[in-house]
């Protein structure tokens, strides 16, 4: 028995002679198909007054639709776009949106309800039977098609003239390469772009709220501050691209509570600067638990311990948050002492 053959006896028709194939009811087989039950008339089929009522209902629904469409146009013309109304229990919503939506909804729904009611009450509900026909072609048709195909194949001489066949396949296989080559200019090559951010030695940390440089005294213990590199402005052409890598969060922890030696060394008086971009898939991290020094990504709940080198303590992130080495300059402002040592954000193949 090959894996494709199943003996007939395993198929239901062979094992069960009382199946659906038996169409007539008889004494011998109480399970036989009794055939379609007789049609039962609806009230509309026998009572013309009921039919009239149905007709009026359908007409009423269609008329409702017409009125609703007029209402739609009237709402469009009369209701100002900035007007709000209170609709219980939803609250304050746009009056125009409410009026247009409701009138359009009613206009459409009434057409549908009318058509369905018409079909259900007034059109014939007598079931009719169609025969099905096998989809597979008859052996004669199949034989004819195969003969035709063979004839065509023979006349093309594709099988015989191998040179034509092989070069044709070669040409057809090669030409899509042009299309692939054309996609090359979709974007530049990555190079080392993902390894560098705007941070470099001496760059001041600018508070994202005040847009001013910060002194250590500006940052209280237990606070969370967001910062960006000096010189990056929201109007800049590449602001989005640069902030996507350079966004920084600053927290201040009592130096005694910092568990990791390098974390302490890279901080300034307990002020720690970490990349704000999650190392999982790049969401900005923003939920800070001041007591535990944990920070949680609101997207996928990766949790990092900022007192311990930004180590992952829960969730799907694969590596610690990169820390930025900071200090203060001669004027007492916080500054970066270097770029991030490793790429920020999600991991990638070349990250190493």
């Amino acid at each position, binding site marked *: 028995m090959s894996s494709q053959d199943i003996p007939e006896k395993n198929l239901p028709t062979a094992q069960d002679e009382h199946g659906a194939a038996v169409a007539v009811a008889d004494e011998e087989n109480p399970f036989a198909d*009794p055939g379609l*039950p007789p049609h039962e008339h609806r009230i509309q089929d026998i009572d013309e007054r009921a039919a009239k009522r149905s007709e009026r209902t359908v007409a009423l629904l269609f008329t409702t639709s017409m009125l609703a469409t007029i209402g739609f146009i009237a709402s469009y013309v009369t209701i100002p776009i900035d007007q709000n109304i209170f609709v219980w229990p939803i609250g304050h919503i746009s009056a125009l949106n409410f009026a247009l939506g409701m009138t359009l909804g009613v206009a459409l*729904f009434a057409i549908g309800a009318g*058509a369905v009611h018409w079909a259900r009450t007034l*059109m014939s509900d007598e079931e009719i039977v169609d025969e099905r026909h096998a989809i597979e072609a008859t052996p004669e048709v199949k034989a004819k098609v195969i003969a035709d195909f063979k004839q065509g194949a023979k006349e093309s001489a594709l099988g015989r003239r191998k040179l034509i066949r092989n070069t044709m396949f070669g040409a057809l296989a090669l030409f899509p390469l042009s299309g692939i080559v054309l996609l090359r200019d979709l974007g530049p090559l990555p190079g080392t772009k993902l390894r560098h951010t705007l941070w470099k030695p001496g760059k001041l940390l600018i508070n994202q709220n005040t847009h001013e440089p910060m002194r250590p005294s500006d940052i209280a213990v237990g606070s969370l501050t967001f910062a960006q590199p000096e010189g990056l402005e929201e109007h800049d052409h590449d602001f989005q691209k640069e902030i996507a890598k350079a966004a920084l969060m600053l927290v201040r922890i009592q130096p005694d509570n910092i568990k990791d030696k390098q974390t302490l060394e890279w901080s300034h008086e307990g002020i720690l600067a970490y990349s704000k971009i999650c190392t*999982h898939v790049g969401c900005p991290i923003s939920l800070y638990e001041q007591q535990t020094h944990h920070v949680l990504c609101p997207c996928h709940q990766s949790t990092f311990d900022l007192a311990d080198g930004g180590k992952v303590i829960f969730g799907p*992130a694969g590596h610690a948050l990169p820390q930025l080495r900071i200090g203060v300059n001669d004027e007492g402002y916080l500054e970066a002492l270097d770029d991030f040592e490793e790429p920020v954000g*999600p991991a*990638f193949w070349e990250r190493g």
Partner: protein
Amino acid sequence: MSTTTTTDARGKAPAGERVADWADGRLGIYSLAKANLRKVFPDHPSFMLGEICLYSFIIIILTGVYLTLFFHPSMNEVEYTGSYVPLQGQLMSEAFNSTMHISFDVRGGLLIRQIHHWAALVFLAGMFVHMMRVFFTGAFRKPREINWVFGFLLFVLGMFTGFTGYSLPDDLLSGTGVRFMEGAVLSVPIVGTYLSFFLFGGEFPGGDFVARFFAVHVLLLPGIMLGLVVAHLILVFYHKHTQFAGPGRTNNNVVGMPLMPVYMAKAGGFFFLVFGVIAVIAALVQINPIWSLGPYRPDQVSTGAQPDWYMGFSEGLIRAMPGWEIDFAGHTLVLGVFIPLMIFPLVLVAIAVYPFIESWVTGDKREHHILDRPRNAPTRTAVGVAWITWYCVMLIGGGNDLFATHFHLSINAVTWFVRIAFFVAPVIAFVVTKRICLGLQRRDRDKVLHGRESGIIKRLPHGEFIEIHEPLSQEQLHTLTAHEQYEPVEIGPKVDEHGVERKIPASEKLRAKLSKNYYGEGHQIPKPTVEEFKEITSGHGHH
């Protein structure tokens, strides 16, 4: 004109017939209508699910065309000067700006936007439920396997059309979703970084993705989907619709109402019903309020970020996965992201290939037009419920933060629950569902053999109490016994025709094992035979 049969007083055919004659001479419409005008469609409430999908697809196209008249698929930064006061003076992309314009300054623009988005949610939900209807009733069996695949492709393409669509306004929420996608693409070994740079025209977010997503969202994907929808419908017509077993309904006929007039009115009317309901929802229930989310900035985010529901299971995968990262010869293998990225298509393909697995196990090559009741295919039903359970576990994972906050649970506990349930829940669902199916089969068997429990208790002269069972009508008896039951396939002979011991291929052993688990003893309840029925009914009336 020679075929004209009806003529009016002046000997000319009515205008409608003359137009039809004209068209017939060029398009052959009479031959086309001959088979289709009175085509019979069976009736069942669950058959409306596919219609809902078709109609919401049409609604999406109509409203989508309107939205393109106002939407600017550009990421150039502009300052907002529209009528929504809280955002005035904000920098935002033109995409966001024009979506604000549609929502606040185009009369009816907000309504159309909301209809478009709501219809998309209904479309995907409709396809999901329709697919499950087809699955649980076995409507995917020969000759409909290809249509199953078309439908599956529509579901998958619908997901991506939805994703590229809700990313277009370039708001804070959707931008976060696109960033997630960038992270996922970056995780692909060797080529990930290159793919990401080509996709975004450089570093994320760049200035290109809205325009590129726009082309994909309004042209590429809907174009393919429109073709698939047409093919799907042509095949529905060609195969003729399936029907449930019942008196007069056989595998060789189709019983129901004709297309003209009943289904033209019912189905045509249903389009308006669906459109009307979605319009009312769009009037009452706000969806994707981009003005309260604000324009996208890669360094900002809000809590409770969720994709649209149909992407939720992929979100669950990425949230539940442990953060595995491996150093591989100086390169980083980001398994914590890449594995979910690979499971994502596997989840979908798992359900898509099922019809082919089942047909291999049964070896049945006949056409099937009578639908199964889910209980009568216990293993298939159990597989389907296990898959849905799997999918729902992932959905829960995708909303683990919401489950944590709403039910006051620890986010870690919810995540661990999802990690374990991902493996365990489908197995439990499989076992439980199969038990329930077998129980229902037993009940059907009892009903056939002993009749319906009437609830009337009778006391016999000698004091015994019995419950009267009413015998079923022949219609009911037929309906409850019309389903087919397979017998398990056995491994072929151990020796070949020469008496030499043959090597039994592993596939054959596997199939025999699967077949036993589908149709073996204890895996389906044998339906009552005529002999059993006669023995019981010819006896002493009851029991």
